[in-house]
C-alpha cells in the first residue's frame, strides 16, 4: 500500500483527516436525495388536504352562490338546505349527506359485526393455541385472504352473498346494504386478525408462565391475562378495521345497489343504499345522465367528510398502537 498515515501529507494532517472530497460530495448528495424522498410524503399530504379543502370549499361556495347553469338545471332553490333532505341525488341537487353517513354506518356496523369475532378468534387461536407447524400453514392462507382485491369481494358479495345468503334468509329484493356489509366484513377479517395477533404475541411469555404457574387453564390465561395485557393493540386493530370499512369503496359500489348515483334515505340494511365512498365512485364514473358542475363538486365535499372521519380514527388507533409499544 502506498497510502501513508504519516503527518507529512501535502496539505498537512487536517487535509488528510478531511478525507476525499469526492467521497464527501457523494455523502452530501445522498443525504439530500433521501431527505427529499422523505419530504415527498409531506407533499402528498399537502396535496390531498389541499385538493380536498379547495374543491370542497368550491362546492360549498357554489351552493351558496349557484351559477346560472346550475339554477337553470335545478327544479327548486339552491342553498345549504339542499344538504338536508330525504335522498342523495346530485342530479336533482339533493345532497343529503345523512343518507350517505347512515349508509356508511350501516355497512361499517355489519362489517365489524362479522370481522370482530372472526378476526379476534382467528388471532387468539394463531397466537395462543396453534403449534408452530399449524401456524406456518394457516397464517399464509389468511394472508392470501388479505391480498384479495376488494373488487373481487364486491363481485362475490353481488353474485354469491346476495342471492345465497341475504335473499334466502331475509326479505330483501336483490342488492342491499347488508350484502355489501358482509362483503366488507370478510375483507376486514385478515386486518383485525393480523394486528391483534401481533399485539398478543408481543405480550411477554413470562406473564403466561406466571398465570399457568398459579394453576390457571389456557382459557383463563388467554382471557384474563393475555388479552387484557394486549388490550391497546386489540382496540387499535378494531379502530383500524373500522376506518378501513368506512373507506372501502368497491364492495359497496358493486353490491349495495344504488342506481346511478342516487339513494333514498334508509335505515334498513335490507334496502338498496349508498355510502360516502360508493357515492364518490358513482359520481366519478358519470353514470348520471347530466353531470352538473355542482353535482360533480359534491364528490369532493363527500371526500372531505370521509377523510376527516378516517383521519380521526387513524390518529386514535395510532395512540393505542404506541401504547402497546411502550408497554413492554
Amino acid at each position: 500500500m502506498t497510502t501513508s498515515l504519516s503527518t507529512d501529507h501535502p496539505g498537512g494532517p487536517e487535509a488528510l483527516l478531511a478525507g476525499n472530497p469526492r467521497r464527501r460530495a457523494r455523502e452530501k448528495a445522498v443525504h439530500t436525495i433521501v431527505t427529499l424522498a422523505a419530504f415527498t410524503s409531506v407533499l402528498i399530504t399537502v396535496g390531498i388536504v389541499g385538493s380536498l379543502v379547495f374543491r370542497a370549499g368550491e362546492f360549498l361556495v357554489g351552493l351558496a352562490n349557484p351559477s346560472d347553469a346550475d339554477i337553470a338545471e335545478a327544479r327548486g332553490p339552491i342553498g345549504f338546505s339542499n344538504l338536508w333532505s330525504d335522498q342523495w341525488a346530485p342530479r336533482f341537487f339533493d345532497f343529503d349527506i345523512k343518507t350517505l353517513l347512515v349508509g356508511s354506518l350501516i355497512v361499517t356496523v355489519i362489517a365489524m359485526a362479522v370481522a370482530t369475532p372472526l378476526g379476534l378468534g382467528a388471532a387468539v387461536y394463531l397466537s395462543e393455541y396453534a403449534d408452530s407447524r399449524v401456524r406456518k400453514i394457516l397464517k399464509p392462507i389468511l394472508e392470501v385472504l388479505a391480498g384479495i382485491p376488494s373488487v373481487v369481494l364486491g363481485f362475490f358479495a353481488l353474485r354469491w352473498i346476495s342471492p345465497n345468503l341475504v335473499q334466502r334468509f331475509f326479505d330483501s329484493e336483490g342488492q342491499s346494504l347488508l350484502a355489501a356489509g358482509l362483503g366488507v366484513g370478510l375483507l376486514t377479517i385478515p386486518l383485525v386478525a393480523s394486528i391483534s395477533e401481533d399485539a398478543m404475541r408481543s405480550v411477554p411469555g413470562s406473564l403466561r408462565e406466571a398465570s399457568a404457574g398459579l394453576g390457571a387453564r389456557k382459557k383463563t390465561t388467554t382471557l384474563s391475562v393475555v388479552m387484557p395485557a394486549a388490550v391497546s393493540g386489540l382496540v387499535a386493530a378494531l379502530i383500524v378495521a373500522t376506518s378501513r370499512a368506512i373507506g372501502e369503496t368497491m364492495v359497496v359500489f358493486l353490491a349495495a345497489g344504488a342506481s346511478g348515483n342516487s339513494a333514498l334515505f334508509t335505515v334498513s340494511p335490507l334496502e338498496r343504499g349508498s355510502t360516502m365512498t360508493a357515492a364518490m365512485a358513482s359520481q366519478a364514473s358519470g353514470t348520471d345522465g347530466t353531470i352538473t358542475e355542482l353535482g360533480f363538486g359534491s364528490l369532493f365535499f363527500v371526500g372531505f367528510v370521509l377523510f376527516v372521519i378516517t383521519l380521526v380514527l387513524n390518529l386514535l388507533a395510532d395512540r393505542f398502537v404506541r401504547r402497546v409499544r411502550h408497554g413492554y
Partner: protein
Amino acid sequence: MAIVQPILDDKTGKRVEAQIASGGVSLSNLIFKWALLGCLLFSLLVLGVLIYDVFTDSWSVLSSRLGTFLANPTRTAADESGIFQGLRGTFWIGVFVIVFTFPVGIAAAIYLEEYARDNAFTRLINVNIRNLAGVPSVVYGILGLTVFVTLLKGVYGDVALSRGNTTTAGGLTLAILALPVVIITASEAIRAVPDSLREAAYGVGATKWEVIKSHVLPYAAPGILTGTLLSLARALGEAAPLILVGAVQGKLGPRTGFFGLDQLGEKFTAMPIVITDFAKQPGDSWQPVTAAAIVVLLLVVLGFNAVAVILRNRFEAKREG
C-alpha cells in the same frame, strides 16, 4: 412478608379434586379452543368458497377461448369480450409503481432510519406516513383527479383524446397510493439490521452511505423486497382511485399496442376496472366473463403476494437458524 395461608375449605377442595379427577380436560376449555379454531377455519372456508365459485364460473370462458379472451378488447357482446386493455393498463400501473414508488419509498425509509435525528420534523414525517397509509384509497383518487389529471391536461397535446385522464395520471395516482406502505415496510426491514454490522463497517473507515450501500441494504433486502411486492400487489388490485381519475369503464377505442410509450398519453383502463364494468352489466351471460377476468387478476395479485410471503418465511427461517 406474611406467609400466605392456603384456603382449603370444603368447596375449594372438592373443586380441585374434581378437576384432577377429570384428567385436566375441561369442557369449557375445549369449547373455547374449538370456537377459536372455528373462527379461523370459517374465514378460510369463505376464501375457499370464493375461489371455487370464481373458478367454476370462469371455466366456460377459460377453457374454450382463452386466446381471444386475452387478446380481445371489451365488446358489446359478452362472448366476444376480452381483457386486452385491462391487462395493458395494469401492466403500465405496475411500471409506474416500480419506477417511482420503489426508489422513492426505499430512499425515504433510509432517511427515516439512518439519517433522521429524533426531532419534530422526523416525528411529523413518521406520523404523516402512518396516517397516509390509512387514508381510504378513494381519497387518493381525488388527489389524482385534482392534481395529475389537471396538470396533464395539456401535456400530451392532441395525441390524447382524453381530458387528462391518461395512463400517466392513473399510474402516478397508484404509485403514490403504494408509497406509504413501501416506506413503512422498508423502514421495518432496515430497523431490523443489527447495529454491530454498521459499527463493523464504520470501524474499517466506511462513510455513512458506504455503510448503507454495502451492509445495511443487502441485509435488509429480503424484507424490503417483501414489502415492495405486497404494495405492488395492492396497487394492481385497486379500482376506486382509478374510477375517480377517470379510467374508462366500458368500451375503449380499439387502439393497438401494448408496450409502446405512447400508451402513457392515452386513455386507459385496468383489470379491476374491467371487472367492475363486467360485473355491472345486466344479464347472466356476463358472469363467466367477469369470473374469468377475476381469475386473471387473482393470478397476478396473489402471485406477487405468494412470492412475497415465501421470500419472507424463507429468510426468517434462515436468520433464526
